């Protein structure tokens, strides 16, 4: 019942895989280092897929399964939007849509000392960076970048936050800039913070702009580049007619 390919393992790259597919046989690749990203695990001499999605390869040796979910798997150096759930004496508990709550140390702010600990209420939206993740421990986040500067991290005031899938977040953060953001940016003025965990925050001067931008981003998930531009044009026309 198993279909075998007699060609090289590059055959599965860029094609859809389901859990259980053996995508790579490493017994024939001695003395090489292969990096496995999300969605793949090693089972003796074979690399097996754990999630359904497209198998991707970046040369020379990094393989991963690209898929889009509503929950998030924490990775180091990702910037995410978290919501404060509780505060303890030495760290805040932040929900980042992952399997466990993240800890934000009370001193992990630019110029943070024991004397100027920020007071976050339950429900505050924070833009944070993931510092440490371990399989069985709570991830640790921080409001500074690697060199200790604030760099845009911290609480987000006003604006509107909505949830989306991780695939849409990655698309919005891709370079070159995704067509939706480009087209909206030509006509409207707004600011966004995109978290890789499937949360997006939008802020603008007037509520109608915020609504248009949020709707455009939510609708753009399954559209191709051309369709995205057409959709944004239509929304902007409606905005001009009503204002």
């Amino acid at each position, binding site marked *: 019942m198993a279909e075998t390919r007699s060609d090289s393992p590059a055959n599965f790259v860029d094609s859809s*895989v*389901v859990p*259980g*597919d053996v995508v790579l046989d490493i017994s024939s690749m001695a003395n090489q280092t292969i990096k496995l990203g999300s969605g793949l695990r090693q089972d003796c001499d*074979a690399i097996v897929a754990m999630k359904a999605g497209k198998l991707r390869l970046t040369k020379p040796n990094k393989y991963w399964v690209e898929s889009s*979910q509503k929950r998030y798997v924490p990775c180091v150096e990702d910037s995410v939007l978290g919501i404060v759930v509780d505060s303890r004496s030495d760290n805040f508990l932040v929900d980042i849509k992952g399997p466990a709550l993240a800890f934000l140390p009370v001193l992990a702010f630019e110029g943070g000392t024991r004397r100027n600990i920020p007071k976050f209420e339950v429900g505050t939206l924070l833009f944070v960076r993931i510092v440490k993740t371990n399989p*069985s421990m709570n991830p640790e986040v921080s409001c500074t970048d690697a060199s200790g500067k604030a760099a845009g991290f911290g609480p987000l005031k006003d604006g509107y936050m909505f949830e989306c899938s991780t695939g849409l977040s990655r698309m919005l953060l*891709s370079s070159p800039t995704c067509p939706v953001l480009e087209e909206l940016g030509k006509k409207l003025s707004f600011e966004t913070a995109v978290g890789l965990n499937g949360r997006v925050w939008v802020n603008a001067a007037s509520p109608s702009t915020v609504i248009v931008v949020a709707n455009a981003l939510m609708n753009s998930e399954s559209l191709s580049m051309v369709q995205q531009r057409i959709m944004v044009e239509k929304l902007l026309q409606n905005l001009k007619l009503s204002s």
Partner: protein
Amino acid sequence: MEIDRIDERTPNQLRPLICSRNVLNRAHGSSSWSQGDTKVLAAVYGPKAGTKKNENPERACIEVIWKPKTGQSGKLEKEYEMILKRTLQSICILTINPNTTTSVIIQVVSDDGALLPCAINAACAALVDAGIPLKHLAVAVCCGLADSGDVMLDPTKLEEQKMKAFTYLVFPNSVFSVLPEGSLQVEGEPVENGIITSVTQGLMSVSFKFVQVEDYLHCIERGRAASAKMSAFLRRSLQSQLPSDTLKAG
């Protein structure tokens, strides 16, 4: 042997399968699976932090809630929940997210025979939709044994009531593999020749004595052949729906 089935199928023919994913807005993963008139909706929430008291904190825990179409949950629902929990525990990789709970909620929309296999298929598709790491997929079929000794696949409710015995069988799916000798082997046999779960009801013969027909082994054979087709259907329906011109992450 010609058998007259009510809906004029051959004994080895399955009912039309329909599967859709991401049907529920708030659930982290969801799917709806229907075989003919039997339809089941499955929703997956998780992984969420924390496990129940009696569960091992070094592994992930799977919790199943079965909601019948009408009436309150009773012993039959508890039995289905237990069977489903054991089946899903064997296909999920439980060591990846220790001390978390994944909840699977099954809602019966309509029941026309082969309800438990339909629910298992729906739960498996919902787990994939939620991105829970799995070892492989599970494909479930129902085989019934009529009084005349003929094996029929995927019986409707009327056929089930008339049968001498029936069995629900859950197989691993057939995998694509780059290994030359096929997929991973366990003790010399390919993994997909195994059975994950088997639930039987009624009277079936297994032994060789008195030159009897081994009905149970016949059921397994037919079920395995059907599972290959269902496996291909499941793979097609799990294909990614993202547009092909995705931009590379910066």
